[in-house]
């Protein structure tokens, strides 16, 4: 869509560059958020499931993902054409956006890529500790290709009514990805949980988070990055971006309070994990709505999301599915809540268009929101289920019991996350070779050969 008569808005560009960077940081943030929540034997695997998305999705996005999502629509708003394959025809001076407020296409490519990366990363929390890493990589590549790229087109591609099915044609509102990102990831998580089944020992052995400060750090980075996610989606540094920023923050804050209130009432204590979970739930729910509601709407969405998600995460114990890190309870439930509540709280003073039920817009918007959620949720669930089972039946998706018991870090990555001990390990092979004694002289535990000009070794302790 780069066209010619556009003028670059440098301020919007600056904000978009920053926003892309902020959203990038969310994926490492998520990796730590999830990594802190698993047992100590699976933290690196958890982190790697996110980092793998940073690698794989980037390559596919450049190759064809951007074109499928943001290429001119091939018809019915279902998918983009292949004109921008390999970012063909896009140069450093190509612009995109409103005539006098355009931004470099590359900035937009980069910004949207960050969304494509974090969406599959979100799914990983549901299948913690029991997925083969190599199969996960294959899954990510296929999933973004057949699920995320089309869905992003449906929701995010606007072309004057000839764009994506749900956003541009139907008129459902999703500013930053309540459907395309969160409902999508959450429905996929549900499907994968059914494919992979429960962790060994679920319900009988302790699966408590191994490092809650790491979780809090991850939550902090997510909150920070989410400002780019939501306010950056304005693609301009203006009042709408500021509104999105404030709404995002308010929803995170109130959802955290809502979640803590439920915990306090139900469990007797407000926990730090609850605070982290609650704020993420609020961020999820406000994502589609941040540029459709006023600050009171943001507060309402936050409180509702925080309380409902706090309650939703306990369903799994009753229904018996092991959504390890509550991707369903937070992202699916939160994404649906936020997307639907637009139908209630949207106000034309913010949207400059449609209003929700409570602001006199009738049921029309609510209906559209419902359709959008249903379409994305169903599509994602069905395709992910099929993809997941196909992978499980062919190359195998679930870890062997031995590997699961050993832990995903050791079995998938031959690493252990921490070594605080004074115990020593025997070094076996270095740099792909048996150690050559000649290489470091007579080095041994008892007689380390100091390299010149170090002093002769003594045994101090």
């Amino acid at each position: 869509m780069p066209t010619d008569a556009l003028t670059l808005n440098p301020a919007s560009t600056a904000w978009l560059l920053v926003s892309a960077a902020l959203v990038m940081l969310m994926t490492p943030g998520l990796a730590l958020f999830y990594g802190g929540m698993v047992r100590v034997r699976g933290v690196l695997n958890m982190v790697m499931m996110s980092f793998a998305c940073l690698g794989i999705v980037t390559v596919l996005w450049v190759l064809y993902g951007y074109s499928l999502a943001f290429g001119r629509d091939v018809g019915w708003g279902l998918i983009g054409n292949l004109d921008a394959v390999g970012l063909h025809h896009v140069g450093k001076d190509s612009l995109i956006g409103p005539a006098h407020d355009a931004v470099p296409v590359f900035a937009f490519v980069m910004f949207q890529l960050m969304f494509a990366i974090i969406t599959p990363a979100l799914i990983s929390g549901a299948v913690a500790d029991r997925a083969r890493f190599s199969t996960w990589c294959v899954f990510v590549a296929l999933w973004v290709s057949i699920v995320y790229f089309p869905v992003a087109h449906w929701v995010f591609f606007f072309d004057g009514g000839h764009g994506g099915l749900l956003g541009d044609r139907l008129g459902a509102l999703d500013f930053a990805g309540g459907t395309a990102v969160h409902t999508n990831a959450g429905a996929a998580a549900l499907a994968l949980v059914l494919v992979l089944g429960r962790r060994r020992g679920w319900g009988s052995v302790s699966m408590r988070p191994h490092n809650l400060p790491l979780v809090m750090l991850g939550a902090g980075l997510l909150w920070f990055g989410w400002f780019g996610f939501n306010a950056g989606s304005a693609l301009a540094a203006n009042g709408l971006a500021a509104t999105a920023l404030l709404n995002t923050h308010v929803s995170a804050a109130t959802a955290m309070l809502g979640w803590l209130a439920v915990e306090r009432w139900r469990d007797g204590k407000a926990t730090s994990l609850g605070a982290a979970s609650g704020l993420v739930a609020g961020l999820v729910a406000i994502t589609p709505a941040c540029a459709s509601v006023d600050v009171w709407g943001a507060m309402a969405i936050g409180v509702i999301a925080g309380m409902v998600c706090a309650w939703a995460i306990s369903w799994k114990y009753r229904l018996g599915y092991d959504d390890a890190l509550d991707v369903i309870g937070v992202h699916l439930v939160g994404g649906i809540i936020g997307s639907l509540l637009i139908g209630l709280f949207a106000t034309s003073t913010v949207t400059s268009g449609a209003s929700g039920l409570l602001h006199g817009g009738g049921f029309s918007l609510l209906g559209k929101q419902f359709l959008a959620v249903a379409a994305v949720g169903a599509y994602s669930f069905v395709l992910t289920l099929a993809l997941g089972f196909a992978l499980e039946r062919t190359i195998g998706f679930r870890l062997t019991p031995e590997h699961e018991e050993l832990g995903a870090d050791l079995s998938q990555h031959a690493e252990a996350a921490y070594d605080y001990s004074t115990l020593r390990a025997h070094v076996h092979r270095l740099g792909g070779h048996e150690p050559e004694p000649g290489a470091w002289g007579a080095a041994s535990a008892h007689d380390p050969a100091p390299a010149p000009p170090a002093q002769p070794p003594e045994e101090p302790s």
Partner: protein
Amino acid sequence: MKLVTAIIKPHTADAVRAALDAVGISGLTMTQVHGYGRQKGHTEIYRAAEYTIEAVPKLRLEVVVADDHLEQVLTTIVEHARTNGGSIGDGKIWVTPVETLIRVRTGERDTQAL
């Protein structure tokens, strides 16, 4: 009195404790240890350096028991620490004589201190 020291696989600890509880032994002391023996460790790789970790994480249980409970305790531990009907690395148990046992709280000694 005897001190029973058992080296067991960590994930059997809950079951062993429950079983001991069932035979009336609720007090014990547990230590995280590393074991070496027939059971092999694992390999780790960091930037092309391969480490063979021979140590296997184990738990060490200490239970002081009255002489007449000894056999029962030994059987109970063996039974519940055994995995899959006996796998390499299931552990060891040894018994050493205890001359005195004291409960700090009261100063009571020997069987009274149990």
